């Protein structure tokens, strides 16, 4: 690494900020049900798929969070997508193969993938 100008410095700064992005909570979130039921149904594999997909698309401003059992165990693995200012949408059952579609359609483009929706939680704001 050699910094010869302000541009060099800004470039390193931008790279470094990408690395530490996960140190704050973003408004855009993917939430995966990680209760015993979720894990048994394969939530871990779903999470891995989410992380790979986000990395592939360079989506650094998304927080990946977990939640516990919400009582709808037969629909696990459950995955929620939260976009700022919009309704929170719960999808299930979600398998790793569905992940790229949900991320591309809903998280990125804002179109809800209706055939996998379990519930919509209205945005209170």
């Amino acid at each position, binding site marked *: 690494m050699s910094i010869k100008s302000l541009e060099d*410095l800004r470039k390193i*700064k931008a790279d470094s900020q990408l690395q530490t992005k*996960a140190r704050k909570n973003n408004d855009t979130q993917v939430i995966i049900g990680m209760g015993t039921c979720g894990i048994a149904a394969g939530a871990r594999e779903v*999470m891995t798929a989410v992380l790979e997909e986000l990395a592939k698309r360079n989506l650094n401003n998304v927080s*990946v969070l*977990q939640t516990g059992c919400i009582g709808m165990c037969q629909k696990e693995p459950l995955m929620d997508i939260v976009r700022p200012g919009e309704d929170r949408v719960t999808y299930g059952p979600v398998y790793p193969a569905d992940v790229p579609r949900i991320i591309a359609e809903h998280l990125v483009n804002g179109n809800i993938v209706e055939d996998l929706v379990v519930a919509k939680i209205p945005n209170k704001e």
Partner: protein
Amino acid sequence: MALVRAHILICTGTGCTASGAKDVLAKFEVELKAKKLRDEVSLVETGCHGFCEEGPLVIIYPEGTFYTRVKPEDVAEIVEEHILKGRVVTRLLFKEPLTAEQVPNYDEIAFYKKQHRLVLKNCGHINPDSIEEYIGADGYEGPAKVLLEMTPGQVVEEMKKTGLRGRGGGGFPTGMKWMFCAKSPGPKKYVICNADEGDPGAFMDRSLLEGDPHAILEGMAICAYAIGADEGYIYCRAEYPLAIKRLKQAITQAEEAGLLGEKILGTDFNFTIHIKEGAGAFVCGEETALMASIEGKRGMPRPRPPFPAVKGLWEKPSNINNVETFANVPYIFRVGAEEYAKLGTEKSKGTKVFALTGKINNTGLAEVPMGITMREIIFDIGGGIMGGKKFKAVQIGGPSGGCIPEQLLDTPVDYDSLIAAGAMMGSGGLVVMDEDTCMVDVAKFFLNFTQSESCGKCTPCREGTKRMLEMLTAITEGKGKDGDIEKLERLAKSIKAGALCALGQTAPNPILSTLRYFRDEYEAHIYEKRCPAGVCTALIGYKITDKCVGCGLCKKVCPVDAISGEPKGKHTIDPDKCIKCGACMEKCPFKAIIRG
């Protein structure tokens, strides 16, 4: 490679390392690998959060969950519950000492909420061993702006506009200091960073050096450009091995990146930094003694003038500032002098870091804007006095400072108000004392420190501190005589006027300030042979009152068999045998034993 979804930040500052942070770190590594989570979770070592009392500290992002007192045994549970399943491990959350309420998030803890962290912004939040993380947190923007857009003269002017005053103790305006050195003629000049932190109870400089070493280098580089220096020294005490290790690492990284060394950022500005390890003499924190020590001479002060700005290190013009002062510089050149000067009071600008120690609930570092009251620092941030006891006084400024009693708790904390109250800002060590503290004993403690640390060069300090200590010792042993207080006052004033350096000139401060606010305690020791706080063993005794039911517990715990009595009858203490350990009073279930 998968996206990193979570960061685990583990404090490996000196405090947390001492309470076992390295074992916690190693355990996280093992557990994350075992659960196949290592690729998606990043494990980061950080510097000090300033909340060492609650260490080892672990913060987990993105949630920002703050775990305290984490032990290696807890790690498996954190990984299984929090990292895998997303459930907070509530038993490890911080509990507010006053409300016993559990607080999950860092930002919501009262200790941090009232603080205004500019200088400590990065401490605990970035990896101090990574220059990339520092740059990511706006690091090295100052030198870039300064070198490419400003002349040295403009830098000095900007510094003067901030109103920043030296954070090492004296409170001299930093901009003026830089101006004097910039005006001194000569091709060779030096920048020196005083990292010889020696006040009992002060550890803000150590935390800064360990947690954000690049900020100090950045501040020094800006100063070097302003005054026209090409070489710098950091004088750091050898008792800070971690600080020295991280500084060395930071210097190497900055040199490799071209931010230190020759032709910095492609300009003609060259600047190299050396580290000099000090041997831990308190007097070497005095600037002329410090420079003598760098030169390889015995660390002793010399009379000023000539000031270092004219004749400093190796007789060349030198500018010397404290660690915290340099740590303010990057922020100043990022936001500008006007923005900086908005914080604080009219004559004391910016923030100050205080080290809270003593009988206080939240021991740690607190950075607050100048002008906040002492009460806010001790009760709102510090969480009040341990064990629900009564506040008595706070010693500020270490052995050179003074005590502030309860009636002055609402004094604003700034350079001038503190001096008016008979104390001084000093480096910002705050030792909080409760009702069980004897003020004569406190004065003796600090005098004992300055007396052992006196270098011996000038008579007022060498002889004066020794005589004052002898008198204080006599008073606490019940051998005080009428007229001792007046003698102490006279001696204190002559030392203040006659000593060569600040160490000697300020050595009597603890005596003068305790005499000013707690004269009655001195009088009780001398005339009534009584220690009101019950600390000075020669002046206390224990008595058994009529409340005694003759249970015999005291007799059992007495280590010297000084207590006699029949079962169910009133017991008595033999004062000749009693060593005044107080064990009987602590044990008595009927509160029948009193001190007196």
